[in-house]
């Protein structure tokens, strides 16, 4: 098990998440895609920490845990926004949510 394997996994996960966020029309799926990209970033953190010269100090884990906590909060806010948007527009399809059009 080398660092590159983990990095490949991380990149793959990030690309899948990005693809999901860009292609899915449902707001919740976009959120899931964003969460996947965040998870990929966390894997990166852990991997770089695990294969670093001095892995004794748990800095990488701490950053990952901190990032997951933020992701959870972000997911809660995101879902709340989706619900609010649904109540207002009666849809969650981002194609139709173009009120910010210039």
């Amino acid at each position, binding site marked *: 098990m080398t660092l590159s394997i983990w990095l490949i996994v991380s990149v793959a996960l990030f690309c899948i998440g*990005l693809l999901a*966020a*860009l*292609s899915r029309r449902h707001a919740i799926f*976009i959120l899931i895609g964003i969460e996947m990209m965040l998870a990929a970033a966390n894997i990166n953190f852990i991997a770089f920490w695990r294969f670093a010269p001095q892995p004794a100090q748990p800095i990488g884990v701490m950053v990952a845990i901190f990032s997951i906590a933020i992701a959870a909060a972000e997911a809660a806010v995101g879902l709340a926004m989706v619900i609010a948007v649904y109540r207002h527009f009666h849809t969650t399809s*981002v*194609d139709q*949510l*173009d*009120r*910010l*059009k*210039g």
Partner: protein
Amino acid sequence: MNSWITSNVWLIPATPIVAGLLILGFGKHARLAGAGVAVLGQIAALTMSIFAFAPTLHVHGFRGVQNFTWFTFGEQSLRLGFVLDPLAAAMMLMITLVGLCIFVFSVGYMAEDKNFSRFFAYLSFFSGAMLGVVVANSLLLLFIFWELVGLASYLLIGFWIERPSAAAAAKKAFITTRIGDMGFFLGILWLYHQSGTLLFYDAGRGCLENAGLAALGGTATFIALLIFCGAVGKSGQFPLHVWLPDAMEGPTPVSALIHAATMVAAGVFLVARVYPIFAIGAVNGVTPSLTVVVWIGVITGLMAALIAVAQFDIKRILAYSTVSQLGLMMVSLGVGGVAAGIMHLLAHGFFKALLFLGAGSVIHGLHHEQDIRRTGGLRKLMPVTFTTYAVGMMALSGVPFFFSGGWTKEEILHATSNWPASHAPYYFLLIGVVLTALYMTRQIIYVFWGSPRGNADHAHESPNVMTIPLIVLAICAIAFSIVLTPAWPWLESYLTGHSAPFDSHLLLRPILLVSLVLVGAGFTIGVLLYRRAQDVDPVQRAQPALFRFLENKMWIDEVYDRTVIALAALAARVSDWMDRYVWDGLVRGFAAIGQFFGALTMDADEGVINAGVDETTDGARGFGRVMSRLHSGQIQTYLGALALGMIALLLFYAWLA
């Protein structure tokens, strides 16, 4: 009560003024309430005047003063005040008593007028304003009330406003007196500049007390003459007397009020009030300003008496007799007989009110006939009016012993004969006495004797409400003489503050004989001349040119028309022309320049600045249109852009590495 009214003397003028305002508030339909409030207000003022009179009797030279600060500017404060002294107390008593008689008379005289209550409102206001003049302890406060008197006279002379002649007479009275008031006001300003105070009495610092008089110095003559201008206007002295006969256009009670109690009395009162200013630097009681007063009085007295002989309007004869009597009072003040002048003013108040109300009764009985050629024989038809009128006529002519006017006229003659500067005024006054007796005899023969002419045979006696005031005034005109006799000059001592012992020798002075002879001569000439008076006046037949001269009031109005008024009209026309062409042209020129620059800047604005702004905004709009296409509102487009940007950054990094 006594001390209460002496410290609240302002209530006396305030009561009639408030009554007048109340009546105006009632509206024109409250006729009974209007007259009632006016009469009650006058009774209240009379009662208070009596109570104010009482304390002045106890102390010789009593003087109660209340001053207060009106407003303060910077270091200076303007102070006004009220004064109660014998002069004010006696005047108030006369004004309120005569005023009350006139008010009651008016109830009958004006009974059919549609603006009955408004008339009483003005009358009350008039009386209150005059009382204010009397109790003012500041020249400024006096001037304020003075102008209120002028306003009230304007309103009342023009009371029958639908008559053009009444409106013109009101305007004439107002404007003519205003000419005098202009001088008066300048005098006030100058006095304030010199003495720093306008209070008459202020514990030794007032302008009539030693310190204030000393501050005037050499300017006193000019200040006194300027103040006298006001008196000339108000008291109808030559050359500003022209308004007084025209003021006959007002209802007769108004004429009575103007000629007896208020208005014309104000001028004489003013001179008496500020007499110390006139008398500064007197040598033997003669000063330049007092000499002017004397000669103005002499000219006025003689001229008006002459004109009165040739008038046919019953009220105009009385009007000119007032002018003449006021001249007499001015002479008296000028020669130093202040007390005599004021005594004559008070006595004149009673008998002139009586005469005017009597004339009003005649006019009322004859259904508004004022021409004495269309009267006659009223002696039997209107006995009460005749008797009282005869009393007034005797008093005015100056019949000694029983009539008040006789004693005061004698007093004035006595003072004038002792004038050290010249004896001429004395002889002119003697001529005036003869003329007075003559024109009054003429009037009374025309009106009351002979056979009725015109519609005079339908005359009827006036109702009680009109005759009772006549009787009261007639009694006053006689009874008043008790306090006037030289043997026991109570009123004189009251006014001057010197004690007067009883001395029966003084009752028969040579001057009495002179007076008696002259009045007798006047009566005799009158009776001889007018015994067979008919439509054509005997003097008119004998001396048509002279009579025309006098009948037309010596053409003084015409002279004013050709000179002063023509000059004013010319000045007005010149001003109008200047305004129209010179000033207006200038204004138009400047306006054209402004317009030119306006057009210029407008072009610059349109062509340069606006165009530039337009270009800029067009550019901004086009750019915005392009940019806004990028904002599709599709979140995923934005995300894609983000992703592309990130990939580009990665590639750039890779290329760098």
